[in-house]
């Protein structure tokens, strides 16, 4: 039976101690304050009422209705708690990313374009820091006996807490076992709205992740990789957020060189070992990049950081490919 007041609905939600703790943490209020709201002893400020809608996406519609009945002057933003203009990528962002694309030398282009785009995307998709990871998983070059693409390298990314702000610190190879791998194979955006959702889509849920989207980076029917966005909130990827992710994936086509886009038939992803297994291999990733650059410099044939990273990724893919199936 539906709740008759917002207080009753909130009371039901926080009857679950875990959910209560989550709401407390995300609102940044004292647990006693929450109980006083439910009992009617205190009337929350408008901004806290709006924040409640954000932290309870699954109950948002019912809660918004009850709040508007109780507080006729409360402004409940239309369009799923987000102003209309925040549901589109601003024209200024296109202009800025295009500027970085034309102004940056090719060897720095992937890093510069992807870093700016990720900062913009993360700010727009998670403006209130509910918890999000936004990463790029780029196709490794074709390799092996079949000369096909065997994995994707997670080589750029940023997050809001609880994720680390800089996800380049956690390099990883993704294969057929991952949501990213699936999106690249089928060639369109895929979404998982909750852990409980029963789908045939492969996913290896990571810590804190309660919903996720993977969206290929396409150019003329060829694929360079994939954007993977994870949220701490179940059901977070409403249609407008999926559209935003598609737009940011389109912008990221500017980060990749033409020859880094591959035909679908060139992609035959393998199963990659679990992140726990990979961690042991990647633990010295940055040292290896550093060593390669310094060695090249000593030999009087310097290489850029991008070149050194590419070599180390390829070596690691070879090392991990042999392990993949047995450690899946």
């Amino acid at each position, binding site marked *: 039976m539906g709740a008759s007041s917002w207080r009753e609905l909130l009371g039901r939600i926080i009857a679950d101690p875990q959910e209560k703790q989550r709401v407390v943490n995300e609102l940044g209020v004292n647990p006693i304050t929450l109980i006083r709201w439910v009992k009617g002893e205190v009337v929350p400020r408008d901004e806290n009422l709006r924040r409640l809608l954000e932290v309870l996406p699954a109950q948002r519609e019912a809660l918004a209705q009850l709040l508007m009945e109780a507080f006729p002057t409360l402004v409940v933003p239309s369009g799923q708690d987000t*102003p209309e203009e925040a549901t589109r990528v601003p024209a200024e*962002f296109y202009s*800025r990313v295009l500027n970085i694309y034309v*102004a940056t030398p090719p060897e720095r282009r992937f890093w510069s374009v992807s870093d700016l785009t990720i900062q913009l995307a993360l700010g727009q998709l998670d*403006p209130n820091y509910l918890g999000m990871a936004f990463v790029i998983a780029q196709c490794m070059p074709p390799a092996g006996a079949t000369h096909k693409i065997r994995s994707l390298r997670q080589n750029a990314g940023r997050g809001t807490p609880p994720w680390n702000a800089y996800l380049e610190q956690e390099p990883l190879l993704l294969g057929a076992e991952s949501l990213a791998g699936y999106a690249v194979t089928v060639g369109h955006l895929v979404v998982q709205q909750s852990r409980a959702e029963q789908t045939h889509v492969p996913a290896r849920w990571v810590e804190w992740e309660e919903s996720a989207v993977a969206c290929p980076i396409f150019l003329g029917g060829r694929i360079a990789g994939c954007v993977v966005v994870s949220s701490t909130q179940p059901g977070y990827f409403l249609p407008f957020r999926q559209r935003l992710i598609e737009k940011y994936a389109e912008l990221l086509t500017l980060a990749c060189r033409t020859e880094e886009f591959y035909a679908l038939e060139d992609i035959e992803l393998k199963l990659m070992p679990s992140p726990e297994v990979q961690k042991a291999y990647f633990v*010295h990733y*940055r040292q290896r990049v*550093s060593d390669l*650059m310094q060695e090249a410099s000593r030999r009087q044939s310097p290489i850029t950081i991008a070149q050194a990273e590419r070599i180390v990724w390829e070596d690691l893919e070879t090392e991990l490919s042999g392990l993949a199936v047995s450690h899946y």
Partner: protein
Amino acid sequence: MSTSSDRPENRTRFVADPESSETMAWLLNADKVLTKGMGGTLAEQADLSGIKRVLDIASGPGGWALEVAREHPEIDVTGIDISDSMIRFAKALVTSRGYNNVRFLVMDATQPLQFEDASFDLVNARTLFGVLAPRDWPRLLAECKRILRPGGIIRLTEPEAPLSTSPALNALWEMAIKSFVVSKRSFSRDGRHLGVTLALKPLLREAGFEHVSHQGHVLDISSATEDAEGYRVNFRYAINLVKPFYLKLGLTTEEEFEPLYNQMLAEMLAEDFSGYWMYVTVRGEKPQE
């Protein structure tokens, strides 16, 4: 972040191109790592109850102002910057995030500020060393005093060069210090450091602020920290973006700079890279009248 060309040489020009998107990406990133390294946006303010109107001077793309607005929906935040491009970008960031308590205005910090007397409870400025020449500070601080309410707070945060185990990073910072001396932006009497942190307290006292105090921030930029990538990103942008400034001053050449830059990137990636970067926040209050 002045781009003005009608000013005397070396007056208020920013050391990197403020029209460049890379500069914007750098400053957004720099704001983030600095805020975290300082323990938050307003970490030294134990009581924010009297803070309702905040001004951020030379706000760039708005990183600090946006973060204050996000953390404190009850505070109205204004950011000003001389660069029209920066302000347009900052406004787009506001739109995309849906915040309704922050605004950005084009304004030159070396000229009279277009605000009424006593308009703000707190004025913030960080890393003005890259924007203002020493002679610009007194007039700006007088303006800050005018637009603060009695009892209002000014907080200024500035750096000195990092200490590190990377010879290339150290060499590039020596170049930075030299560039400030050559371009007459340095406060240092012997050219061995930036000197701006040492100037902040005397400047605030001369401007008539009281209860002037300071807080040091030692940012650990070593490889072993969880923020290491943030600092690597910061220097990867920053050093590259100030290169044209160094070339223009004749402090280096393309042939010398590129290997040094690559060496810095390599050394900062090494597991044994260690470094500390010192920032100082100096805080003062406008006397009660």
